[in-house]
């Protein structure tokens, strides 16, 4: 892997956010003075205090579930002949996968090696990306509120199954890279 990608991977988010944040702070300071900047920082601190209890509980829950679950064990139900059931299993496995992209994408390779087909893998990644429980509980409920999160979850929970069904019909062959 090129070192630039390795560096970007590790710190990309932090660098991008810091750059945007600094530019925004300077712009706000020029427009409305240092008082407005301080006030915005106070708002941010307020929001953090509001999120902190959910954040801690969500991380504890994710840490505990990681010891209890292993989505890879479900791969034998995700083969090309597994039909809708396989897509459903893949979606649920994705939803239960804790952690960020550094955990989820390598797991796709594990699942592919254990027999999951491309439809199930697409369903798995979308299940994780759309409705991964850790993101829902740690970030979405505290930040966007339980009402919005519940509505979005109910509206999109079935979508990975549909996308997996579609992916089985799209004529792009995919072999896991070695």
């Amino acid at each position, binding site marked *: 892997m090129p070192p630039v990608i390795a560096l970007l991977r590790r710190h990309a988010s932090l660098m991008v956010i810091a750059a945007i944040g600094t530019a925004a702070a300077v712009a706000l300071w020029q427009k409305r003075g240092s008082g407005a900047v301080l006030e915005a920082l106070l708002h941010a601190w307020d929001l953090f205090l509001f999120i902190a209890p959910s954040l801690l509980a969500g991380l504890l829950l994710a840490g505990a579930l*990681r010891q209890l679950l292993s989505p890879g064990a479900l791969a034998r139900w995700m083969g090309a002949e597994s039909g809708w059931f396989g897509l459903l299993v893949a979606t649920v496995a994705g939803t239960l996968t804790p952690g960020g992209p550094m955990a989820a994408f390598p797991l796709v390779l594990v699942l592919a090696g254990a027999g999951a087909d491309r439809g199930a893998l697409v369903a798995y990644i979308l299940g994780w990306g759309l409705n991964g429980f850790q993101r829902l509980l740690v970030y979405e*409920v505290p930040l966007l509120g339980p009402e919005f999160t519940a509505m979005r979850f109910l509206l999109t929970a079935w979508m990975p199954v549909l996308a997996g069904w579609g992916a089985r019909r799209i004529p792009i062959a995919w072999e896991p890279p070695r």
Partner: protein
Amino acid sequence: MNGAQIFLWLLAAIAMGFCARRGALPVRRAMAETGQSLAKILPLFAVALPMAAFLAELIPADAASGWIGPESGLSGIAVGAVAGGFMPGGPFVTFPLVIAFAKAGAGVPQMTALVTGWAIYGIHRIITWEYPVLGWRFVALRMLAGLPLPILAGILAEAVGAVVPVTLGRP
């Protein structure tokens, strides 16, 4: 603490209980992983929350109401879905920005499309993870299979909003 937080702590306690039934080691591992996650997340929060707060102050109060406001309909949903793909990072960046947009007048269906578009089209994640780990063929397959879903999510959210009003943000 509100109801959602109590529920979350209850779930965490139950899961930790199951860990404890398997012995001391899983409990210690779960605690250690929680600590590691916190160490990774806190620096991100330390920059992401102020960034979102500054942006929320800079964006004029009705800036979002035209393009992605509640009355913007399908075009606003499409704009939201595409904008979601360009969000520059994980949930700790995207969700505070969604709050800032909502404050500036963005509609709930449009923000549903944005969050769904971020989850499905998210370009930063494709560049840093999906392409290097799984290759462009997988990226193409998944993008094609998921292409209409963020728009669909926005349309469904609009239909739900017509029946049950849904609010976004702190209860």
